[in-house]
């Protein structure tokens, strides 16, 4: 079957069924159904509000649950001012020992070059270096 015949046959498709359709009766029934069945707008709106409410409950519940299981922020962290105060109490030798121990922990590549001359640094310079670290 070529395309032309295909189109001709397609044009006839459903023609007899459509001819049998009682158009006036269909129009009458459509109007009756439109009058009888109110537009589902209220149903739609109610459904949407229910969904929105459910979503809000889920989000609030989720946030609450996360807040419960997550440790309070900052409880394990040290405030920078406190660290500075603690450093002020250390002697030059203490600071030097502390920096040396850092060297052992931290990879050499991330330690500033200035730590290579630690013995030459005075107390103030060592404090500054530790604060930067």
């Amino acid at each position: 079957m070529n395309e032309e015949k295909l189109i001709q046959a397609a044009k006839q498709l459903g023609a007899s069924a459509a001819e049998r359709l009682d158009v006036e009766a269909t129009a009458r029934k459509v109007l009756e159904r439109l009058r009888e069945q109110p537009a589902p707008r209220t149903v739609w709106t109610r459904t949407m509000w229910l969904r929105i409410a459910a979503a809000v409950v889920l989000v609030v519940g989720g946030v609450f649950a996360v807040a419960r299981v997550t440790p309070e922020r900052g409880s394990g962290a040290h405030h920078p001012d406190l660290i500075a105060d603690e450093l002020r109490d250390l002697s030059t030798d203490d600071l030097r020992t502390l920096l040396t121990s850092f060297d052992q922990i931290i990879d050499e590549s991330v330690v500033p070059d200035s730590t290579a001359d630690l013995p030459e640094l005075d107390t103030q310079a060592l404090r500054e270096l530790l604060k930067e670290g």
Partner: protein
Amino acid sequence: MAQPLPLEAPDTALIAAWRDGDEQAAAALVARHARALARFLSGAGAPEAELDDLVQETFIRAFRSVDRFRGQCQFRTWLMTIGGNVLKDFGRRSSRRQVMPLDDAVRDVGGDPHEHAEATEAEARIAEGLKKLPRMQREVFLLRAQQGLEYEEIAAALATSPGAARVHYHHAVRRLKEIIA
């Protein structure tokens, strides 16, 4: 009270009148487009026993959502896209109830042997072939071949591009030829 619209009033005027609550305008739109819609639905696989209900349902959905019709295509074309959705929902309900799957709908056109005899062999073969096409191809083919619409119009109705509509049509024709051969 507003004057009744003449029967030959354009669709846009009838739609505007229906928006203002004129039921006669809605009746005029049904009278104007029901048969074309029935042909489209029938071609897309609607069983004849359900055709009247499906046509009604399509018009009801269209009238209720008429605010969404922005004149992007003809009212009739828009109606057919709604009809496609109505038919899809019907097929889904039918398969859930396991009464009659949509695929069998074309084969059984209501149980009247006379109706079977009326369908030409070519129509029956095309109807059979159309069942095997994806929905987009089937609808583009029907809108083009059965309803004689331009690709631009089809594309506007189906929210695609004219080029894509053309491709769907050619795929449909090629597959129909293969199936029917």
